[in-house]
């Protein structure tokens, strides 16, 4: 809630003054009473009227003044309006370490569920694309309004291979900005669990993304002491350590936020937030009409009450 002309709010200081004046005048009126032998009968005829009832009309009028002053200050409300033109690339990692079970049921299953939640939370007009990668980007879907295709692409992944984060990001960037001049709202959401093993440096790609106005939101998944079973049955379990530092650097360079998720629920929540943030933008709306109408209604009520007591 913000105000377009907040100087009017200073007039609210006069309201306690009005209250004090009313009370003082009412006390003054009580100082002079008329000699009346039938005063006891008159008191009995009036009955026990609750003291607060006398003040209802004045209180309503005061509330009307306050409401109209708020209206004069022109309050404004911030709403999130759905973007119709955005394009978002989901870049998901399905390397071998995603088979670890530190995130229930496996990191990959949790990531798929979260990504599905993300897609569901986006408005229909937003274009979604998917880049699934392990040692190289495979299963690339360009941004389109057909969310079903993206969901299918996400569900198809299996966990195997290395991690080529930089290459995947470059591919996603290329799909979002086919020509240098295009500047529709766009974002990349990167979900990965491990450090880059092959391919180009993700930080360089992040700098390029910043130049093209594409924020890269990163979600680092997994706990530190997770392991995956060794394909060689006689060997020890392989470590599957996430790399949150690189992810944070990538997000900061490209001008976005970094998240880290330790479990599936957290992951789901992050994606939900991202979904609503990326798919909408903040807009201020003028809500002056609300306090003005309210003030008028209160004025009418107060006037009606005051007139009714004269009847």
């Amino acid at each position, binding site marked *: 809630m913000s105000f377009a002309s907040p100087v009017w709010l200073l007039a609210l200081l006069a309201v306690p003054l009005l209250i004090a004046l009313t009370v003082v005048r009412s006390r003054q009126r009580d100082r002079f009473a008329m000699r009346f032998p039938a005063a006891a*009968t008159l008191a009995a*005829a*009036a009955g026990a009227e609750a003291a607060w009832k006398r003040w209802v009309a004045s209180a309503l009028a005061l509330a009307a003044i306050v409401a109209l002053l708020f209206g004069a200050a022109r309050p404004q409300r911030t709403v999130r309006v759905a973007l119709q033109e955005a394009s978002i690339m989901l870049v998901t990692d399905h390397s071998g370490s995603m088979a670890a079970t530190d995130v229930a049921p496996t990191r990959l299953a949790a990531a798929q569920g979260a990504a599905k939640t993300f897609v569901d939370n986006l408005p229909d007009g937003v274009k979604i694309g998917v880049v699934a990668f392990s040692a190289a980007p495979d299963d690339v879907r360009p941004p389109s309004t057909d969310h079903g295709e993206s969901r299918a692409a996400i569900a198809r992944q299996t966990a195997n291979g290395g991690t080529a984060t930089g290459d995947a990001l470059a591919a996603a960037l290329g799909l979002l900005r086919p020509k240098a001049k295009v500047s529709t709202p766009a974002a990349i959401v990167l979900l990965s669990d491990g450090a880059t093993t092959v391919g180009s440096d993700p930080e360089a790609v992040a700098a390029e993304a910043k130049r093209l106005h594409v924020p890269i939101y990163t979600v680092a998944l997994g706990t530190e002491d997770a392991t995956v079973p060794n394909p060689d049955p006689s060997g020890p379990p392989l470590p599957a350590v996430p790399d949150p530092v690189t992810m944070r650097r990538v997000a900061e360079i490209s001008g976005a936020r970094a998240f880290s998720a330790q479990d599936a629920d957290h992951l789901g929540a992050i994606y939900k937030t991202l979904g609503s943030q990326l798919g909408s933008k903040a807009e201020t709306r003028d809500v002056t009409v609300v306090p003005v109408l309210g003030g008028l209604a209160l004025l009418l009520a107060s006037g009606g009450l005051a007139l009714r007591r004269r009847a």
Partner: protein
Amino acid sequence: MIAERPPLHPPAARQGPGALPRPMIEALDVVLTRHTARSQPGDRRAAGVGAGTELAQLRGYQVGDDVRHLDPAASARTGEPHVRLHVPERVQTTWVLLDVSASMAFGTAQRLKSDVAEGVAQVMGQLALRRTGALGIVRFGAPGPPRITPLRAGRPAFAALRHVLAEGVAPDGNEDASALGDACSALGRLAQQPALVVIISDFRSAADPASVLGPLRARHTVLCVEVYDPRELLVPDVGILSVVDPETGRTARVDTGSRRVRERFIALEAQRRAHLHDELRRLRVGHVALGTDEEWLLKLGRSLR
């Protein structure tokens, strides 16, 4: 004793009783005479000083006694001259019980209630002192015991009446619910002869008229003159009104703009007066209601007829 009786004073807005035209008083005389005929035997028109019919005593003749009072029967029996002495009885005794409480100093029409009361007392006094009657006044409603002006006849009675009426009413702030009862019981002890008792009051105190007037009515003829003000019966729409009772000092702040309040006030007052009238009618005492906005003398005459 004298220190506990605060002085009475004439109310600030005193208007006076208005004109008292002689023909109307004459007409009222006739009416009143007929009204009181039932309580006292004998001819109203008897004149003369000291020649009543009630025997006071029979005693031996002393030098100086009027020889016309010699009693033949007693003198023959005893052999010595005896005289018969009679009670010097007045023909008509009137007692006026006047309410001088603070609530009487109120009026919103032509005059105050105390002005109407003063006029009625004046008229009753003049009529009482005709044909050598006697007049006594009891003032109640002021703090302290009732102030009694004993029976007088002739010119001293007129002077006493004028003096009493000029004193005025009690100051505000004193409430005495039993004032009427005290006055009636004091009068009951004092007045042995059957008399005409005129009670001039607004009858607003809480006393039940039946209990105080019953003993009085048994011996005397009682006439209740109720003085009211039209604003005590209905209250106009003047918005929020702060009122204070002159006797009890109780304040109230009332919204007279509400029709419900006005109608309820009318109902309560009508109920109170109806109860009073019923009680007075049941006791079979005479009752007249005089308002401050009408010709009270005319109404008094018409009501008594």
